[in-house]
């Protein structure tokens, strides 16, 4: 064994970096090991970024790590433009909308304010470790208690409303309140993006609230592109690690987590090198961490079964189209850098696209989230409902077919785009899985579903970051509270490890 560290973090995704920074700033000798040649995980590859819109980093984390406040604070919240095939597009920024009849806009604003309050109450739990099932300590219960209190503070009517809708589906909620159309489509996309759920799937109100629980200096649920873009965010995080004395090595895939006497002893790299540390935090998805890196022989059979059965079927493909200048919307205006364009003209279109994916097929018309990266001259597209377990597999032909159908859908909203494209790339959920070790290529490393949330995240018996082998922690998107670029799992996991270390 070579040098000895207090803690090793496997994976330099943004969550791994947050965890590493937390530990290093508490004086721990920390080593981050990243398989790829770039930092930031799905956020970090400047050539083909999996996650192009990193809006959700929590301000508490920025404060706690002493990151520059302007990172998420100064830039303006970005708008979402929802394409409408039958009229002018709808532009949404929080409760404000453009392109809707005044009554609908008003109804939406009221609904949005209500959901916002409910999401905020829910958001209290995001930076708290989930309580244990059955034997929660008093400390663990405080998060739940605070959430319960926040919910009570919503008032009787709103709390009752929250309990009524929280497990239901956005289809019913939005149909009741605002009717189908591009506005509902944009909201339903937020509710389902990255998951194997359509607007009609139960639990999609919860996932919508989850996304709305994001927080920035501009308030709740608004989307803010970091100052300087994704790379600036990754750099700020990695600088924070190294400034605190942490080391980061790229191009060093970990092959095995070493165990001695039922305790974590360190890691073995693919190169054969072994590095000792009593504490290992894994940023890699739970399934890969436990089944591959740790090995089932260290785990109880029931635990392994629950891990194997964890839902993590990736549904999103990433496509990049290189274009020389900003794409033009039908209205004549151009898509701004970082602006979101949703092509999901209604909940019906989303549910229809999901239908095909349920049975392992590609939708004829995938629903899309697109953004323009002006620095790289590229349109970044997340194509929803392209299943990991595609019938017949992800061949080059299939990718070309997907690319063509995505381009056809884009062409409706951005006329003339096809002829402006100079190059394109496709990353399927399988590519994401092999490239990043995320089981199923799943956006959140594991489905955000009622049975995989809070004290059940990533699965029953594995919540609270601590794994059965002492000294091993999960610190990635698979852990509570889940995916997106929030940093919360990494933050919570590091705190759990620090707390345990004190005892």
């Amino acid at each position, binding site marked *: 064994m070579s040098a000895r560290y207090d803690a090793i973090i496997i994976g330099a995704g943004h969550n791994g970096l947050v965890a590493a920074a937390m530990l290093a700033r508490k004086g721990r000798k920390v080593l981050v090991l990243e398989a790829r040649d770039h930092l930031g995980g799905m956020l970090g590859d400047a050539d083909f970024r999996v996650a192009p819109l990193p809006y959700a980093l929590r301000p508490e984390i920025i404060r706690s790590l002493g990151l520059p406040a302007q990172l998420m604070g100064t830039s303006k919240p970005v708008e979402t433009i929802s394409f409408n095939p039958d009229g002018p597009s709808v532009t949404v920024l929080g409760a404000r909308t453009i392109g809707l009849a005044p009554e609908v806009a008003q109804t939406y604003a009221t609904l949005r304010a209500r959901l916002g309050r409910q999401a905020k109450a829910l958001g209290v739990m995001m930076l708290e470790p989930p309580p244990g099932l059955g034997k929660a300590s008093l400390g663990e219960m405080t998060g739940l208690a605070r959430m319960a209190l926040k919910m009570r503070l919503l008032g009787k009517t709103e709390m009752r409303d929250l309990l009524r809708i929280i497990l239901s589906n956005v289809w019913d909620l939005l149909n009741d309140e605002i009717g189908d159309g591009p506005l509902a489509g944009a909201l339903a996309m937020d509710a389902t993006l990255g998951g194997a759920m359509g607007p009609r799937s139960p639990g999609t109100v919860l996932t919508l609230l989850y996304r709305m629980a994001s927080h920035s200096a501009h308030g709740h649920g608004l989307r803010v592109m970091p100052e300087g873009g994704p790379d600036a965010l990754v750099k700020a995080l990695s600088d924070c690690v190294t400034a605190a004395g942490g080391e980061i090595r790229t191009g060093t895939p970990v092959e095995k987590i070493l165990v001695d006497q*039922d305790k974590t002893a360190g890691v073995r790299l693919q190169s054969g090198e072994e590095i000792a540390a009593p504490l290992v935090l894994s940023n890699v998805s739970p399934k890969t961490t436990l*089944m591959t890196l740790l*090995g*089932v*022989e*260290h*785990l*109880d*059979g*029931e*635990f*392994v*079964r629950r891990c*194997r059965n964890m839902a993590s079927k990736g549904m999103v493909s990433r496509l990049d189209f290189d274009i020389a200048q900003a794409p033009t919307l039908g209205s004549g205006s151009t898509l701004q850098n970082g602006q979101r364009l949703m092509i999901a003209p209604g909940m019906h279109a989303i549910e229809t696209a999901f239908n095909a994916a349920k049975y392992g097929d590609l939708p004829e018309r995938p629903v899309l989230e697109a953004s323009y990266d002006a620095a790289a001259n590229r349109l970044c597209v997340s194509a929803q409902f392209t299943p990991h377990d595609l019938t017949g597999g992800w061949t080059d032909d299939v990718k070309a077919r997907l690319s063509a159908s995505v381009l056809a859908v884009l062409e409706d909203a951005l006329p003339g785009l096809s002829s402006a494209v100079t190059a394109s790339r496709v990353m399927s959920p399988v590519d994401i899985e092999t490239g990043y070790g995320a089981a199923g290529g799943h956006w959140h490393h594991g489905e955000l579903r009622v049975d995989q949330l809070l004290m059940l995240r990533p699965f029953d*018996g594995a919540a609270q970051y601590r794994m*059965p082998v002492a000294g091993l922690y999960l610190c990635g998107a698979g852990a509570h509270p889940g995916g997106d670029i929030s940093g919360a799992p990494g933050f919570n996991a590091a705190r759990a490890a620090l707390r345990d270390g004190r005892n």
Partner: protein
Amino acid sequence: MTATAEPVAQVVSGLKSGPFHDRLVAHNRQQAWMNWMGYASPSVLDSVEFEYFAIRNQSTLFDISPMCKYAITGPDAEAVLNRLVTRDIRKLKPGRVAYCIWLDEDGQVVDDGTVFRLSETEFRLCCQEPQLSWLEDIAWGFDVSISDVTRDIAGLALQGPTSCALLKDLGLAGIETLKTFGIAEFAIGGADVTISRTGFTGDLGYELWIAPADALTIWDALMGAGKLRGLRVIGYEALDMARIEAGFLLPKVDFLSAQTVLRPDRANTPYELGLEWLVTLDKPHFNGRRALLDLSGQTPPRKLVAIEIERDKPAHNALVYHKKSREVGMVTSALWSPTCKRNIAYAWLDAPYGQSVTTDLWVEIYLQKEIRWQRRMARCHPASRPFFSHPRRTATPPADY
């Protein structure tokens, strides 16, 4: 008046005929069949007393074909079994058998059974309850293959003082050198048979493992040789008496499998069952180890203890009291032991009774005399298990008797 009715053939509805069924039918005067894993299995063939005394004084044949059997083979077979059971299977040499228990993740007993190590990479697990899906969970991720061979292997328990002599009569050269928990290959009447020196009676005895096609050949050879050795076919009831004396617990009677309980507090840890001698905590991870580690420092909330009862009436289903007044437990298996000449039982006692408090314990025995129930309080004392174990069980070579 003349009787005109022909004897009506017994209809064993819904039950499968085992490999020895044709012979068992012929012996089964009582036609008292029970359901054992879907097989028609005799509970008594003739009379319990005769069958029981044959176990202790002569030799007996009991069809154990219904027992669940699993073949676990492959490069990781040892690792899989070591992960399954609480004993250190790495220490089990090829050609040996070990009695084992296995646990769920909470450290509660799932089942018990015997692990046969047939070679470095081939094992067989024999147990009471179906375990295939459990085994598949335990073996997931390992290079091993598991198959249910329950119906592919017929089994006969040949138990009793004259059992070795009987096998020698059949020309099984070297059988007398087979040690307790050893396995060896032989041929009887031209048919291959694997014999293990194992059993459920606490006495000298063997278990014979046979291809179902050869079952009757071997049965007939044994019965032929057994004439002079007092061989008797027995049913479950006589065996149950012997197993209580021998200190073996019975799932579903003395304890419930963690997988079958409906109430979470009904499953049992090895410590509660008095089976801590089967647990090796300092071996590589096995299922339930971490839970057990936590439990190992604690006093079990209740314990299954062997008790000896004063007076002679068997204490079936009796409640146990401290100072004749405070209810502290209940009896699961009970027997007036004809061999030990003692009134014995197993009882669940709530802590601290049976653990630190062992005096002034009473069982409440119900007796029926001509449709009148009577209640007797009889003093009982914790005893050590087993109640009966004969030196010839382990003597090698065993005497002929």
